[in-house]
């Protein structure tokens, strides 16, 4: 894999002294989907703005496809499509004209076939002659994506693409993202919906307070930080965890009807076999057992806490 976006020591301090980015290093590989997760104000949008030319970085370098975003901004920006977080569209213009405008603005010769393809992919073709102001919120967001895709970017930034979007449209968008990836487009999306990152990303980066806490393969991240809960439901309630089971760190729940055991899936020994044997040794009758993987959300909350501690 080769990196298509290289970010080195990127810093941004705003005029009011707010340090939005505190030295970000990140390589984004060609053709991948990278999700940047972080709470509001973490620096996600500033990071994207610095790469796309909307904000001037205070320090560090960014290159896109080998083009430095400051010195060779034409080369770099020609490769980038940006879908901003806010819905910002010329309200009185027709859909197809705003899309054509975007293509021209990026210096691409008119190509009606491409514009049609983009509009059809995003189910906007029927609305092509509608004025933007007549569209629903979800449709407007599609127009933003259509504008970004109109000039055939190699790298697409989606800044919280599904914020305030209904479930159906969200699924649609994920499908669109998957199609783009199949076409070889590198996609960077920011989100604070963890299930979104979990559903579509190849790698996940976690940003908080202007710092990149980690970037990892999604599966590896889930595994590395993945703890599992084993929930044991009992046939008869108990008042306390029996003395002989105390070293398992069991938590008694549901008025003595259930026990929860937390273990590390990556550990040398999970201790499950021994626990089950000890449970029956203690005379407990089991009614049911379940295991549950901790969600990315829990992993994320843990990381952000770690970072601020």
């Amino acid at each position, binding site marked *: 894999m080769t990196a298509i976006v290289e970010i080195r020591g990127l810093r941004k301090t705003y005029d009011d002294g707010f340090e939005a980015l505190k030295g970000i290093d990140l390589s984004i590989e060609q053709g991948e989907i990278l999700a940047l997760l972080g709470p509001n104000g973490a620096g996600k949008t500033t990071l994207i*703005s610095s790469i796309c030319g909307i904000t*001037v970085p205070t320090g560090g370098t960014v290159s896109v496809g080998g083009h430095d975003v400051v010195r060779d901004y034409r*080369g770099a920006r020609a490769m*980038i499509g940006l879908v901003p977080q806010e819905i*910002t569209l*010329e309200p009185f*213009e027709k859909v197809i004209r705003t899309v054509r405008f975007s293509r*021209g*603005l990026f*210096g691409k010769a008119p190509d009606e076939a491409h514009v049609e393809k983009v509009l059809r992919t995003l189910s906007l073709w029927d609305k092509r002659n509608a004025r933007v102001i007549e569209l629903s919120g979800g449709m407007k967001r599609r127009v933003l994506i259509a504008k970004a895709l109109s000039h055939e970017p190699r790298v697409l930034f989606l800044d919280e693409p599904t914020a305030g979007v209904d479930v159906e449209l969200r699924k649609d968008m994920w499908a669109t993202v998957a199609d783009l990836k199949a076409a070889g487009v590198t996609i960077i999306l920011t989100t604070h919906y963890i299930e979104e990152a979990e559903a579509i990303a190849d790698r996940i980066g976690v940003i908080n307070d202007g710092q990149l806490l980690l970037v990892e393969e999604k599966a590896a991240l889930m595994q590395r930080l993945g703890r599992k809960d084993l929930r044991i439901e009992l046939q008869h309630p108990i008042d306390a965890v029996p003395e002989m089971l105390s070293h398992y760190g069991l938590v008694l729940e549901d008025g003595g009807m259930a026990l929860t055991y937390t273990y590390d899936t990556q550990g040398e020994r999970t201790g499950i076999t021994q626990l089950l044997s000890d449970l029956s040794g203690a005379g407990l009758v089991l009614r049911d057992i379940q295991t549950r993987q901790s969600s990315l959300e829990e992993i994320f909350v843990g990381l952000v806490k770690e970072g601020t501690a």
Partner: protein
Amino acid sequence: MNWTAILAIYKFEMSRFFRTLLQSFISPVISTSLYFVVFGAAIGSRIDQVEGVSYGAFIVPGLIMLAVMTQSITNASFGIYFPKFIGTIYEVLSAPISFLEVVMGYVGAAATKALFIGAVILFTSSLFVELEIQHPIAMVGFMVLTCLSFALLGFIIGIWAKNFEQLQLVPLLIVTPLVFLGGSFYSISMLPPVWQTITLFNPVVYLISGFRWAFFGMADVPIGLSLLAIGGFTALCLVVIWWIFKTGWRIRS
């Protein structure tokens, strides 16, 4: 030079103009007719001629200049302010184009609209008074330069403005008074000597005078001075634009 991008901005801006073509067309026609009724018929009946030109014809260059200047400023300032206001400026900032190209697109479109309106007023005027243009090429040249330089000024105002009030402020409080006091409707020689001197500090005097010279071959100030004034004004605007470009003032954080 990214001509495709310049053309895209230009066309997009012009389409705003064509969407409201009727208003764009009718309002200058009506206001020009009103000026002719008020100034031409009411006052013109008392002022017969100004330096050998009928009063009705005399005010035509001033009328055109008034419209062209305010239209250039309004169009250009609104053209760049509106994307800032609604947020669509992000796209222009993230596009592979230079600031110069952005200016060319917006200013070019604003100047074109103003030029169109200037032509409409010229045509409407010709229905009211008999006009002969002695130096047609100079007339067109003056008009184009004025459109461009005031569109540049409008662009600067649009970048500077933080709200709609500020956007209106400069045209309303500075440009309109300067144009009215700049000899649009009278010859400076008709003023008392003291006011003649004060008037010479008004830059618009030189523009209107030069423009009137192109029509009738007569002027309040030498034509060379008029050219110098419009050239200097354009240069000043370009310097400010260059500075905005260098610093990213009020565009890029």
